[in-house]
């Protein structure tokens, strides 16, 4: 039976703070006058920071709560920081755009916070049920956020697609969960791991169950063949939501992957290892190659995020501790850079038109040098060119792959990032080497909060080299117990 005592709740302080803030925001949004609603954004930011601070307070904890339903260990703490960062980025980027675009209903911030809670739950889950709850909490909030510009058909389409495919994935997950429960009699990840590694279970049923369970995370992470939703949903959703969506869920997905596949199934590693390799190669290939054919920068960034999922999968190959550390570190680099990249799209948004296609970027170097420089930093970081953060992330990943003995996979990864240079470069070309479009569509709106978020992201991306060591050791320290 699951023991429960109130004293343990203190370990979940960050989630509680977020929950309170989210509820407050949603409630206040009904009471407060529309103009003051942006004040609620400030409340959301404060809540997120408080949660972050709380997570820091609990950072030395390594405890299993509620008979291992929830595990608060350095691994979970690391992801808490990541999700706070993601939600902060999401909120800061959305303050101004919401006022002009889709009506300023402030439950938007509430939803973002709820999604963040969902992610945290997924990262801390020690039990598949908890994983499911976290997954659903996150997904549902994101379905609504994706369709937040109700009057825009693209936003609706994004929402409906995301909803249908997302629910299908979680449906398959639950079915897999039930099979797994049937086979092992428990839903605790570690217990399942022990029973499975003890062997004696019918192989086809087990494989089917595990595959079904894995689908949800592969879907969230946007690994091939479950990646089809990403381009349409990212393009359709409001840009701040896309920014949030491209970092948060992916990290959460990988968190569960690490928790389930490295912690629970170390013995079964050779079994699913080849599978991960195939997935990684396919994801990198699809992500990077189709991106070349894109004309919309936003959609290109969507495919690029698929590609990055492929790189991260390389870290999982071989199931080594170094690999896991590399995944964690890369997720941090990826979060900062992707928030920045989408942030630039948000910052450049004008009263009338949005900046999305390559032609919108033409001549940006002349018209908005700062934004162009920012985009240049983020793009080259995504390509993996030093001194940007992306390089160190990829470097750590490829070192892990080589250490695990998969030199050829590292070579493939490196070649894929060279291919990726092709489309990232095209944006830089447009910005610096083409004349600005004749009709300057007016100055972009002043968005202090978004500019702040992007500037911080830019400095972090460029300056990562300096504080490389603390981050590397943090990532290496917060590994799931092997």
């Amino acid at each position, binding site marked *: 039976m699951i023991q429960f005592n109130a004293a343990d709740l203190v370990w979940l302080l960050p989630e509680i703070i977020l929950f309170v803030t989210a509820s407050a925001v949603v409630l206040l949004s009904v009471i407060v006058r529309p103009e003051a609603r942006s004040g609620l954004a400030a409340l959301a930011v404060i809540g997120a920071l408080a949660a972050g601070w709380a997570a820091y307070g609990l950072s030395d904890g390594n405890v299993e709560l509620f008979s291992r339903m929830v595990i608060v260990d350095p691994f979970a703490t690391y992801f808490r920081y990541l999700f706070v960062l993601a939600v902060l980025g999401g909120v800061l980027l959305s303050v101004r755009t919401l006022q002009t675009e889709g009506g300023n209903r402030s439950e938007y911030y509430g939803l973002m916070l709820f999604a963040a809670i969902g992610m945290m739950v997924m990262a801390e889950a020690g039990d598949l049920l908890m994983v499911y709850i976290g997954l659903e909490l996150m997904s549902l909030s994101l379905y609504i956020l994706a369709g937040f510009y109700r009057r825009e058909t693209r936003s609706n389409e994004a929402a409906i697609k995301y909803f249908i495919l997302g629910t299908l994935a979680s449906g398959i997950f639950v079915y897999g969960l039930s099979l797994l429960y049937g086979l092992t009699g428990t839903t605790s990840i570690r217990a399942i791991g022990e029973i499975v590694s003890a062997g004696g279970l019918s192989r086809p049923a087990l494989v089917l169950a595990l595959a079904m369970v894995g689908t949800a995370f592969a879907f969230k992470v946007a690994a091939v063949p479950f990646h089809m939703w990403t381009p349409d949903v990212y393009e359709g959703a409001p840009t701040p939501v896309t920014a949030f969506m491209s970092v948060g869920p992916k990290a959460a997905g990988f968190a569960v992957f690490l928790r389930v596949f490295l912690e629970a199934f170390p013995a079964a590693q050779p079994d699913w290892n080849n599978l991960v390799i195939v997935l990684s190669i396919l994801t990198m290939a699809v992500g990077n190659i189709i991106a070349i054919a894109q004309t919309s920068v936003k959609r290109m960034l969507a495919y690029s995020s698929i590609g990055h999922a492929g790189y991260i999968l390389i870290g999982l190959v071989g199931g080594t501790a170094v690999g896991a550390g590399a995944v964690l570190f890369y997720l941090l680099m990826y979060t900062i850079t992707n928030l920045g990249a989408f942030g630039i799209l948000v910052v450049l948004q004008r009263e009338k038109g949005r900046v999305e296609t390559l032609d919108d970027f033409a001549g940006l170097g002349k018209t908005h040098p700062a934004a162009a420089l920012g985009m240049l930093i983020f793009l080259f970081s995504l390509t993996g060119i030093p001194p940007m953060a992306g390089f160190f992330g990829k470097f750590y990943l490829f070192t892990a792959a080589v250490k695990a003995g998969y030199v050829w996979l590292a070579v493939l990864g*490196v070649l894929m990032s060279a291919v990726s240079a092709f489309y990232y470069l095209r944006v830089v070309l447009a910005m*610096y080497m083409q004349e600005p479009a004749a009709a300057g569509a007016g100055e972009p709106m002043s968005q202090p909060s978004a500019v702040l978020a992007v500037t911080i992201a830019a400095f972090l991306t460029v300056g990562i080299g300096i504080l490389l060591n603390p981050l590397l050791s943090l990532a290496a320290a917060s590994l799931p117990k092997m």
Partner: protein
Amino acid sequence: MKFPILSLTTYIPLIGALYLLFMKEHEGMVRRLSLAVSLAALALSVLMLGHFDPKSAGFQFVENLEWAPSLGISYKMGVDGISVLFIVLTTVLTVLCVLVSWTQVKKYVREFHVALLVIESAMLGVFSALDLVLFYVFWEVMLIPMFLMIGIWGGPNRVYAAVKFFLYTLAGSVLMLIGIIVLYVHGGKTFDVAALLQVKFAAPVQFWVFLAFFVAFAVKVPMWPVHTWLPDAHTEAPTAGSVILAGILIKMGAYGFLRFSLPMFPDATVTFAPYILALSLVAIIYGALVTLVQTDLKKLIAYSSVSHMGFVTLGIFALNRQGIEGGIMQMVNHGIITGALFLLIGIIYERTHSREISAYGGIARSVPRYASFFVLFVLASLGLPGLNGFVGEFLVLLGAFQRDRIVGVLAMTGIILAAVYLLWMTQRVLFQEMTHPENEKLADIDTREFITLLPLAVLVVFLGVYPNPALSVMHASVDQMMAKMEAHKAAAITWAQAWPF
């Protein structure tokens, strides 16, 4: 030396660039500041050269800080006989680039000088990095500003050239990244070059990592057949860009061979030496023949660089003292000469806005001082004894001849071809009748341009007449490397060893 001179020299340009970036836009100030910063870097590099002890073979001015111990990465800088000359060459050429861009670059002056200074920092970093990751970081950092420099301030077809340059170099160098990581894994979990130099790597590791490094360096040198980016990049780059490209960037590839490939993988070097010699020969003769028929001045000098760099790789992989020291001297000399030639083309281009040889003819009459500089550097380029081109070339030929007579003979044809294409070009540009009347009114070089060219002219003559001081700097380091190679009794790796599966 008390204070960390290497880091200081490397980062002064970077700090200058950052300051320029955030300074308010004022063209005059930008140029003067950029000149001041590059001169400071030059002063520091000369100071370092002064304090450099040619007797000791090991690394000097070593700085060692922890950067990311968990991954075995350390921030280590140092310089030895092989790399010290390149550092000074870099700072010298960069100052001249700033000078030549004084009037040529009119749009985005600030961004131009930022890019130029960042490139200088990256190049200085490459030559003084003693940690593989640090080396790779500087190696790649140089890509972005160079790409922007070609792409933004370049000639008509600059976008294609910039993209080609970027992708070509990136594709080559990413394989090196994997090579570095494999070294790390097999070399005792460290990226420190000094430590890795002591490690005896197994045959397969040597074989494959040598190939990985070779791809990156061959693209950079550029060796035939991966050279086709060079003509495009050189023709489209602005004058300063071409000077940097020809003067220093293509030397990083050959420097890489000397710093990493030869000492760390002796067996693999011996295995691949014949093939690389063959490729170098092709580069020399093929490069020269193609240079013969160029109609664009810059493209002509670019293809001649392919030929001259063929001599460098020939010297290095002749694997004897004369060859290697000849290779290094040829690199330094080629940097000076080709840098000067590109400066000259830039100067005349500024006046006539045409790079086609047919647009010129008989201009020696209207620009005598320009013509005398032009002839001086052309003679140095074709290896006239008494000027610096000859010293490097002759030593390389000597080294190659010692290793294999036929290679020596074939390479020697290079000096005839060089004379043919260079003199034929000089004749069509400077001499013959004045075909275009408007060339009559060409203005001769002014004092600023004179100051830009003078140091290179002095260097060309001084290094030609009295090259020993420059040669003596590298004796100790090269001897140490050669001794290590002989002690190791490098044996060729068979395919079976390289592919144990």
